[in-house]
């Protein structure tokens, strides 16, 4: 039972190191604690409401006023001012007092009276696509409602229903599923949460590995390393990380969404069965990557900048069917790609375990693959350990001997 004793010793030491190293605490605990809260709070309003908009009504008719009144009443648009001409309206947009302009030309009323098509022009600042969406959706909604009435007048002898059926023999209905208000938080937060888990793990573990190498270069060796086989080091450390991240994941993936009322329609059994391979693959992935961490800090700089690309490459915002084959292949090397998609499917879309089979298989494959590569890294670091110790000891002895002479 020597091996079990060894693994336990490594486990204990690594746990101790993680909890008492201030740098590691930042990545293992502080970031997972704060970031999800911050992001959930930031995106909490889901969408932009009451976009400040100015109206330029050159028609000055009862219909144009009715249109503007109804648009103002929608939840997405707030008409903050009426301008005499476009010049004045543009000035307000340029000064960031408003983001959209509704322009009703003078011909609007004549066109309506002559039975022609009346045009309303909408202008949107493209600093954000959400302004565009808000003003277009609100105005379209209002115009469709008003059109029904006008059409009934124009088709002589037809009722409102008949005229509507005439123009639209088939009615089209739009149903957004799994995120019924097309909200930003519902779409973005689950992905951010899963990514936070992987990224903090990579940074924390990398930092610890870097520290150990730094010490080793200076001839300092942790006593618990001595006499352990690489595989014992691997198992001991990974169990330590796993025990920390089970708690972190419970907080990040269950408590935070619960507090912020995000969609959580998973089955416990499915979620657990999915998270186990995700955490394992993240751990072994981090251990593998930590093989290039030659000191504590360089590793942080090298890995932080990929966080945002990883969010994009996962296919959560930019659809994976449109990601070029090269980048899609690159994405398969990161547990976050499958983790994010699987978690969104299980958590937000109520998918069952069998629906996320491809992701599950990929994560287990990564667990095996990165488990093996992590072992290789550990074999290189710890396999020759005894010899290193002897060398260091000899060097010191010689140095002392030289001093003595």
């Amino acid at each position, binding site marked *: 039972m020597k091996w079990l004793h060894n693994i336990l010793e490594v486990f204990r030491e690594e746990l101790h190191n993680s909890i008492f190293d201030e740098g590691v605490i930042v990545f293992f605990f502080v970031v997972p604690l704060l970031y999800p809260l911050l992001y959930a709070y930031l995106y909490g309003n889901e969408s932009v409401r009451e976009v*400040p908009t100015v109206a330029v009504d050159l028609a000055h008719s009862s219909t144009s006023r009715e249109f503007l009144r109804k648009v103002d009443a929608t939840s997405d648009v707030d008409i903050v001012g009426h301008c005499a001409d476009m010049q004045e309206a543009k000035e307000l947009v340029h000064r960031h007092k408003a983001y959209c302009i509704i322009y009703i030309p003078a011909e609007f009323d004549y066109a309506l009276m002559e039975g022609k098509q009346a*045009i309303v022009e909408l202008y*949107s600042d493209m600093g954000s696509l*959400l302004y565009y969406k808000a003003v277009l959706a609100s105005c379209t909604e209002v115009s469709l409602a008003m059109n029904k009435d006008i059409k009934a007048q124009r088709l002589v002898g037809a009722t409102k229903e008949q005229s509507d059926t*005439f123009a639209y023999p088939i009615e089209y*209905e739009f149903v957004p599923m799994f995120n019924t208000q097309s909200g930003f938080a519902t779409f973005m937060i689950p992905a951010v949460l899963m990514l936070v888990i992987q990224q903090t793990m990579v940074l924390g573990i990398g930092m610890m590995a870097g520290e150990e190498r730094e010490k080793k270069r200076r001839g300092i060796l942790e006593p618990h390393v001595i006499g352990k086989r690489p595989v014992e080091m691997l198992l001991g450390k990974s169990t330590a990380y796993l025990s920390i991240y089970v708690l972190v994941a419970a907080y990040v993936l269950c408590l935070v969404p619960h507090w912020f009322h995000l969609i959580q329609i998973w089955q416990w059994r499915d979620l657990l069965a999915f998270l186990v391979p995700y955490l394992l693959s993240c751990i072994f992935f981090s251990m593998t990557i930590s093989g290039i961490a030659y000191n504590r800090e360089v590793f942080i700089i090298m890995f932080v900048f990929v966080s945002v690309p990883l969010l994009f490459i996962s296919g959560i915002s930019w659809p994976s069917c*449109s990601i070029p084959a090269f980048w899609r292949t690159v994405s398969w090397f990161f547990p976050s790609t499958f983790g994010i998609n699987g978690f969104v499917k299980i958590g937000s879309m109520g998918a069952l375990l069998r629906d996320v089979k491809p992701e599950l298989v990929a994560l287990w494959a990564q667990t095996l693959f990165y488990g093996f590569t992590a072992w290789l890294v550990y074999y290189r670091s710890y396999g020759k350990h005894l010899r290193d110790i002897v060398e260091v000891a000899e060097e010191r002895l010689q140095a002392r001997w030289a001093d003595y002479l």
Partner: protein
Amino acid sequence: MSPKEGKNGSLWRIVQREVARMLSKPVYVFCMVVAPLIGYLFFTTLMGKGLPMDIPVGVVDEDNTSITRQVLRNLDAFQQTAIVKQYANFGDAREAMQRGDIYAFYYIPKGTTELALSSKQPKVSFYTNAAYLIPASLEYRDMKMMAELASGAIARQTLYAKGYTDDQVMGILQPIKMEMHAIGNPGLNYSIYLSNILLPAMLMLLIMQVTIYAIHSEVKDGTSQRWLELANGNFYKALAGKLLPQLMVWIVMGATYLVVLYAYWDFPLKSGLWPMALDSLLLIVVSQAFGVFLCELLPSLRWALSIATLWGVLSFPISGFSFPQLAFPAPLRSLSYLFPLRYYYLIYVDQALNGLPMHYSYLWYAALTAFLILPLLFPNRLKKCLLEYQYTK
């Protein structure tokens, strides 16, 4: 690595020494050249022309008549939609969506054709997976357009036959029509929307980190006293000698992303190059200043670096380029003004996207420049650290 012996106190000596340091550690080459280039390449090739094409869509056609098939053929003609599969019933299609095979599906219930022929206005439903917001909203647009075209087609024929003119026909089918103008980005190109900020934001993150590393690694390597000696103890001279050669590299990297965005991809640059070039230059210098400031505030490599990381990553969402600041809760709206990237974004919108005269953006330029004061706040803390601190761990 040590430069040739020369007179202490010359800026040139410190610059030479810094260049030697930068060349001797691979982290500099990686973070200053390789990483930004990978980032530029990544974002611009990922989104390519800026609109996803052929998003897979499913169909549940319970009616399956020549008319419903005609409707579906119309849909398939849109560039952004590709009908990939027919499903037997609603449940199958929903499951396919849950698996991620399709992003949306049409549901045509039984009896649709019959109702349509008897003028009873049946309903065809379009379900999108809004958990994936971008494809869902693009699908929505295609569907809306198709609905307009398909519905109008039949009615138009009838009206023409009755002798109505084009004008009158449109007036009957759609009396009030919206005409949308997206200022500066008429094609709703997502790459214009996102890459314009993602690229500089990534560069900013790297600049802050590298600056902090360059300063604090002197302490860690135990060379900080030597570095200050070369400047005759003049802290600002030492700092200038260190940051100048890095600034040159950053300027080249900044110019590179300007070329990538505005020359290669030809993104809108309405006010011409210089306002944006100034914006980028300011962001670069401010990022360095911010790095120095964090070094002063937190005289420890790991802490300064950790805080820079958190600050830099938070800059992305809080600058408001994807989810607008207008929709933030009030405290975060105020907080966003503490992030240099916020001003970079505001200048970009004014200058590149909207092409406004400079005076509209003076305030933003001034605010961005104001961050340069930060490193002047606590220089002594860092100086003390450089002179006395022993790296223990």
